[in-house]
């Protein structure tokens, strides 16, 4: 039935490959599988649905407890302050925000009732149990407070390596360092670092289906620098003391959230 011979059987591409660019497969695969733009992309859109839809759907946000990397030691007091700053910024944009205790107390209760979400031996999360606890928790928050979405504020690390290179690394590192040169023992580092560990303040906002409505990560600073001469590790806590810089970063975290014209009470 086929009127053409299969070109693959007679291909001598290996000999001529260098003559032609071969972007099709890569481009097509990228087009098909999509994939969200990275945080380094100029076109990065934190808001995943149109602003009007977001405003129609989300007025009350329940906050999850602030999560931080395992090596960051946060006192209870500092954790509350971090959350409070974010909560105020969200309220300034017209949202009603439930402090994390509302989410966390329910989450803990339901989790205990079904024997825990994580395997005590392996630490691996049981996805079915996780889904059940999420379902009961968000259902309760919706019933009781009309919360339509959940925010998960966090501080996370991201390693910026030269290989494989992505984006404008030098520019990114510059931004992470607060628009200044990366420091080494108190002086500007003159050589290009091999990689830098950055700390970001992140926040995702999810609906009851766990679909992402908003997602953002904003550089807070760097916590490790690796260069030819060695490495320099810096405690992440230094980035939170004083909290002024954190406060500025949080303002950027929420800046793409649509603003409710008038702060409205939940229905």
């Amino acid at each position, binding site marked *: *039935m*086929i*009127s*053409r*011979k299969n*070109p*693959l059987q*007679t*291909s*001598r*591409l290996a000999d*001529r*490959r260098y*003559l*032609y*660019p*071969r*972007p*099709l*497969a890569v*481009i*097509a*695969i990228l*087009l*098909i*599988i*999509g994939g969200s733009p990275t945080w380094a992309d100029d076109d990065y859109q934190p808001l*995943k*649905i*149109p602003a*009007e*839809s977001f405003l*129609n*759907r989300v007025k009350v946000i329940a906050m999850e407890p602030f999560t931080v990397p395992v090596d960051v030691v946060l006192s209870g007091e500092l954790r509350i302050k971090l959350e409070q700053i974010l909560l105020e910024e969200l309220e300034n944009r017209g949202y009603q925000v439930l402090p994390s205790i509302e989410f966390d107390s329910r989450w803990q209760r*339901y989790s205990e*009732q*079904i024997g825990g979400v994580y395997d005590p031996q392996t630490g691996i999360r049981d996805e*079915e*149990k996780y889904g*059940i606890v999420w379902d*009961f928790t968000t*259902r309760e928050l*919706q*019933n009781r407070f009309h919360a339509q979405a959940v925010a998960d504020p966090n501080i996370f690390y991201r390693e910026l390596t030269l290989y494989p290179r992505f984006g404008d690394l030098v520019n990114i590192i510059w931004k992470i360092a607060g628009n200044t040169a990366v420091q080494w023992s108190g002086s500007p580092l003159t050589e290009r670092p091999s990689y830098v560990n950055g700390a970001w303040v992140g926040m995702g906002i999810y*609906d*009851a*289906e766990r*679909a*992402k*409505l908003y997602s953002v990560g904003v550089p807070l600073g760097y916590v490790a620098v690796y260069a030819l001469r060695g490495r320099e590790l810096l405690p992440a806590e230094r980035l939170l003391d004083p909290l002024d810089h954190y406060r500025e970063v949080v303002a950027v975290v929420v800046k793409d959230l649509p603003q409710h014209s008038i702060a409205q009470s939940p229905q």
Partner: protein
Amino acid sequence: VHLTRVQLAWLTVGVLGLGSGCVSTRVPPVAGPEAIPIDLDEQELWEDSAKFDEYMSDRKYVYEDEALQQYVQSVAERLLPHMGESDVETTARILKDPFRNAICLPNGSVYLHSGILASLENEAQLATLLGHELSHYLRRHSLKEKRSAENRRTVANVFLGTLVVIAALGGDPAAAISLGHDANSAMESLLDHQVNGYSQDLEREADKLGFQAMVAAGYDPREAPRIFRVLMAEREAQVPEPYYYGSHPRVEERLRSYEKRLSKIKGTLAYREPGRVGKADYEEHIAELLLRNAELNLRLARVDFAREEVARYLEIAPQNADGHFFQGQVYRKHSRSPQDLALAVDSYERAVALRPEDAASRRELGLLYRSLDRHLEAKAQLDAYLEIKPEAIDRPIIESYISTLDLE
């Protein structure tokens, strides 16, 4: 402009380079004896296409529904005899992707997103879409676009390269650097063209050939422009989509093009006595896909799309418990008003009535009754849930709920 001999020599080299570096974009259609010798550049396109096919099937992106796949394939095969020779092969596949798009690879593999199938209304519209996409394949548009890009690249390289040399020889290194930068920008924009689809001329050619084929195959020509009106219908406050058929301006271009083609055949027999629309057949085949696509849309927070799809599913299959259950889920989880919750209750109740042994429907209905303070009804449904599914992981939570219900 006064050129030195050296500059003139470079310019001559450049002009000669233009002639020798370009390849012909006038290629014969796939069907026909001229198509047999395939050039290396087209072989590369085929090889990339085969890799793409493999990639998609390996990663389970393909929506598995044998009957639907065969149905789409049969519509494609019905069109092919009217697009050239009938001995050309194509394979139609469906991808699990709620964004609306369709592509045809240079090797004849057609990929339709579940999102676009969920948007179409009937078989005639499907034939329009397939006709358009198959035209890209049969007229070797990928090869033409590739060669055209190559040629433009060659022109840009030689032209700018020559000017760079002239500028450098003329003692203006800054101008040479600037021209070199422009040459790089030209490369980037050429690649950008490849990403964003075919040129307008090729799209119009695909409109023409695809339209002729669907009319010749006996479909109602009036459905051809309708597909683009359907795609342009505003939902979710103009959700931006990443692909061609989700792009408002480009879909609008296609709409105008097909309306023009339709107006040209007014008065003909094909217009006066319109042929097959195939609404019932189409809906029968895509019913299940509507639900699966609604699930995908919910994962992307596209609630309005999901609502429309489940509503359409229930129009097609009003006695299906899955459809009512899913509708309940959409309205319960994304309720925007008390009416939404009432609709969720109604949907769950219908699901339970249609399939009383379904634990999930009982659970959802019971939990919803509880939240609405309808405690007696809640207890009945939650008891039934635990009876149907005694091993339920959430049993302790449900039991604690039942124990606190006010049954007075």
